């Protein structure tokens, strides 16, 4: 199992949040990969599960904050699906893999960086145990 963490993000607010983060000079460790979709609402459980079973350590679904989704409530729908996959993972025995929903406002830099690094650290702790 690789230790890469896939960030699936939307093309609107989440993309701007990542851009702001890099603009302010915050870097991510190379195990984070990013993939852009038009809206996190277009993510479904199959996509998340397939990525995990193909070897990703974790998937972070990065969407816009509540009421900020350009497509009204795509981020809320994504949250629902992430919750379902989380339940499935815990029932099936996750082996240290995870899937999480993260919200970001287009102007956050530091906050987003800290949240994402938190996943890397948590992942490491799990891997060691």
């Amino acid at each position, binding site marked *: 199992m690789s230790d890469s963490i896939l960030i699936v993000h939307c093309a609107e607010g989440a993309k701007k949040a990542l851009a702001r983060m890099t603009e302010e000079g915050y870097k991510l460790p190379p195990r984070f990969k*990013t993939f852009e*979709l*038009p809206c996190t609402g277009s993510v479904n459980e199959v996509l998340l599960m397939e*990525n995990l079973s193909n070897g990703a350590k974790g998937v972070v679904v990065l969407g816009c904050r509540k009421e900020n989704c350009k497509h009204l409530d795509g981020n809320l729908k994504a949250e629902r699906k992430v919750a379902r996959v989380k339940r499935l993972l815990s029932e099936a025995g996750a082996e240290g893999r995870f899937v999480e929903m993260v919200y970001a406002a287009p102007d956050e830099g530091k906050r987003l960086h800290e949240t994402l690094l938190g996943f890397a650290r948590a992942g490491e702790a799990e891997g060691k145990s």
Partner: protein
Amino acid sequence: MSDSIVAVLCDQQCSSKGPLQAANLTKRLAKSSTVGKLIVLDKACQDPEKKLKKVAGQKILFGGCPYLEESGFYSLAAEKLGLRPGEMLVTDVKSSILDLYDSSTAIEDNLIGRLESLGRLLADSAGLKDRPVKLKRNVLIFGSGYSGLKAALELSGEKLSVDLVETEDPPLAPGCLAEGLVCPGLIKELTSEVRTSEHVAVFPQAQMGPIQSVEKGFTVSFGGGELREYGAVIFAPERSEAPADQIGAWNLTQLYKRLHERRPIKGRIVFLLDRRSETPPEVIQDILIAAKVIKERSHAELWILLKQMRVALPGLQELYDTAREMGVIFVKYENLRLQNEFGDFQITGEDPQTGASFRISNPDRVIIPGTSGLSASALNAAETLGLRLLNGQYTQPYSLWRLANESNHPGVLVCGSARGNMDGGGVAADAASVVQALKARMIPEGITPVEHIASVDADKCVYCLTCVRVCPYHAMGKNIEERVAQPVTTACQGCGICAAECPAEAIDMRNLSRETVLAAMQAL
């Protein structure tokens, strides 16, 4: 070689002088199955056009900084090379790779991965021949009150023909009531101007059939006659005020009617605000103007009981001060009690600022502003237009993406008091800004469908209409004869929510099907 993709990197950091060695990248990409060739356009390159022309006819994956995308560099390149949607893809490599990682090995690894992954997406996509869809130059305005009339007049002279639907709402909504007093013949004037305008046709609401959204906009038939087509709809009904919830009390509409008719209002008058819901500043403006007029005409004893003073409109603070100078008594209250026993009416309460209690006995008239809301027929029309109601009273989402007049349905604009409480100046300003929004939608060249619009596989579709329900834009239509869902290409914004929610997995985004997305993620 036409199967493989050409990757074009347009950032200085990829050049031969930059931290990444173009030669290195080319070597690694040589082993790739999707990306066939790598071109680097850096500052040293004198003639980017010539370099790009060499790869005309192939699909191109552009990578560079977001600035290039926003400044239209890629669209210009696409135009010159004759690329259609589906034949090119653009990705931001600066903030998501070059600036995101620290070490050059990490950058190189991630860049290769990203190029291969997106190359896979591009390789599987089909080129499109989308032609812009021209919308009809007709506009339907739903609402014949102050807002609708103002919007109709703003549009006259714009080479658009307007159909106005006459609704039965009162012409002025709470917030604008003072406007009718300050300019008495206002509504009559506006109505006659609209009716005599050659650009505007007026229809009564009773004759209006259902509004359908179609490829080129909307259709309605009036009186069962021919179908009229529109490029956009302006939703502008007036809010009306609920009656006062106390026997014998007036609401503001009733008060203003008496003021118009110059009926005497004297004695002890009490305005009771903020009981069930807070009073917006525009309505307070109406109240203060009415209070001034009453004081001028009859020197009545005037009380205004409220919980908070709303002053956030220009000129409102001065109105309070003027009213006070004229002798209007303002009291902030808590623990208000209204007791009516055998004709003896007592209003008691406490002033939270002084702790003292007050009592008003047997007022001659109590005026309670009612909450303002949209009529049932207006809400019905809103539903057929696919407008999502917010808190039961707003027809626009509360979101920074949709300020001013846009609603969640592309092509439907909301104007005037339907947006919220407004005063006269606010409605006039809104009529102007709705025309701006209209122009942004009804572009003369037509609207080109978004690249990733939904496409429904008719064989898999079970017509459960889940997609119709979840579409945030009301852009999924129903093909009733064939019993499948059909997206309206001029409204679909390519968010992909329908694709994710479809239980039969019958919907995919064009050029972004499930399988290719998964394969692309794999390559990372």
